[in-house]
């Protein structure tokens, strides 16, 4: 039988609740030795200048500027200074979240709203954001273009008070090898927003790092195959994600204010999409990840041997929903539906 005592989960201190998420440009500027210094750094970052180019600009500026103007001695020095500046919403923390066979496991992360703040502090990204549902149609047919043209957004928006906006959170995670030999690997989780128009979202700077998930290590191969290890692995994965997104629960009833340069938006945060490869999908939904099990699809309950049948009609395809899956687990018949006998943390999110 499964040995429940193999691992223990540790609580983390909750993140403080705020009313307003301030992304206006005035408050988020780090402190520089002088105003000109700051302007120069902004220039360098905005145009993504090389050190050589930045140095030449510096040289030129020094020639024409007053003597009391404080500028960095070189681009390199300026960058080093920038790295040292402590911006509170960019710092990560490391917490101990699980003990498995006396081995501690740590989650390195930052609060989810800090990540959102970083993303939206980029003026150009914010300008390409839409917070309200709008319906597009062409000759009586609906057009599905962006997330905020879809029916999910419409449903969500309709469930909120008038004037409230939707903040659609997309999480993406995948195990990534960090060297060519494949010896070290990390498991980053990235965040992006469905509010951003897709051509902008597809650029690299429209995603931010939320944290690194811990990876459970087994000492022996037989331990790796043991039921207890797999259970601990699933629990660790779900628990880590739970910690990452837990702050969202604090705002499900009242939302929060998003303060931009010239406006205040009343937003409700929602998780809209979780992206991943197949093993990832199975871990998120707690379904069996073998293709040989009776119901291999994480989204529906079609039997494995019927998945290749293109002629199934709509009513033969039963989708998995929170309600039915919960019921299967409660009744203890989860195994029959290729579902792990465990509570899924996502059930309680709005």
């Amino acid at each position, binding site marked *: 039988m499964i040995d429940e005592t193999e691992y223990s989960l540790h609580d983390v201190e909750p993140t403080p609740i705020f009313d307003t998420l301030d992304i206006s440009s005035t408050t988020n500027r780090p402190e520089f030795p002088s105003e000109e210094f700051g302007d120069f750094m902004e220039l360098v970052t905005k145009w993504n200048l090389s050190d050589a180019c930045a140095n030449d600009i510096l040289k030129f500026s020094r020639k024409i500027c007053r003597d009391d103007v404080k500028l960095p001695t070189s681009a390199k020095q300026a960058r080093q200074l920038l790295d040292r500046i402590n911006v509170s919403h960019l710092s990560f923390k490391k917490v101990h979240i699980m003990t498995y066979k006396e081995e501690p496991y740590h989650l390195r992360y930052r609060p989810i709203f800090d990540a959102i703040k970083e993303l939206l502090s980029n003026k150009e990204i914010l300008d390409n954001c839409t917070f309200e549902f709008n319906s597009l149609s062409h000759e009586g047919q609906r057009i599905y273009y962006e997330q905020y043209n879809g029916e*999910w957004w419409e449903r969500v928006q309709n469930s909120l008070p008038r004037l409230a906006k939707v903040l659609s959170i*997309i999480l993406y995670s995948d195990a990534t090898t960090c060297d060519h030999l494949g010896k070290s690997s990390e498991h980053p989780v990235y965040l992006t927003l469905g509010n951003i128009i897709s051509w902008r979202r597809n650029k690299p700077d429209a995603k931010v790092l939320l944290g690194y998930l811990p990876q459970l290590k087994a000492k022996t191969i037989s331990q790796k195959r043991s039921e207890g290890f797999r259970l601990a692995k699933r629990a660790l994965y779900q628990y880590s994600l739970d910690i990452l997104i837990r702050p969202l629960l604090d705002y499900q*009833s009242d939302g929060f204010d998003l303060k931009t340069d010239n406006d205040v938006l009343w937003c409700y945060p929602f998780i809209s999409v979780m*992206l991943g490869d*197949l093993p990832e999908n199975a871990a998120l939904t707690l379904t069996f990840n073998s293709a040989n099990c009776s119901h291999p699809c994480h*989204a529906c309950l079609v039997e*494995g041997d019927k998945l290749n049948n293109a002629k*199934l009609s709509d009513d033969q395809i039963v989708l998995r929903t929170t309600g039915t899956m919960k019921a299967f687990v409660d009744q203890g018949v989860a195994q029959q539906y290729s579902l792990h006998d465990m509570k899924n943390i996502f059930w*309680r999110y709005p």
Partner: protein
Amino acid sequence: MSFNNIYLTMNVSHLNIYAATIPDRMHHLDLGLFNYQVTYTRELLKEWCGQIAVDELDNRLARIPRFPGLKIFKNGLENIKRFTADEFRNMMKVFVFVIEGIIKKHHKTILSANQASKLDAALVNAYYLWNKMYLYSRREYFLESDLNDFEVLCLAPYVNCFITYKILPFNCTVYIGSNCSMGHSVRTTLQKILPFRTSIAKTA
């Protein structure tokens, strides 16, 4: 405040994790299904025609003249296990033309000439329809009728290629957006419109 609370508790959760979890296109299509389709085609050629056909395939791939932006597979598909998504995308561009005629030319004697040319045509068609579906998946927007067209014009014939000619042991998930998730956000639809499950295909 209390009004909001009442308002929200009346509604059930909007997050259905089983529908919100989606495979991303790169893993799903490029590295998953197309990879599988190509690997399987090679095995198929070996069975129907012998090693000579597989060599011919590699040869044809290697002999494509250079073209800016197109990757040429000088060593054929020797290193297919180490290919990246970019390489598979390049393969899609040329595979329809590369595959044509191989079975006709090299088929074993157990197949009649008629059978061989039929199989050949079906195989080419499968790759053609695949490309069509792949392009669909990259569209920026969809009309409701597009989703339907996808099913009727691409997916159904694609599946038929396999069922009629038994080209691949078709064990991939075949159901599309309209069944599974139309009415979800469009991004989701975009991914869900794609019919297959990567790993299922891999183990088939």
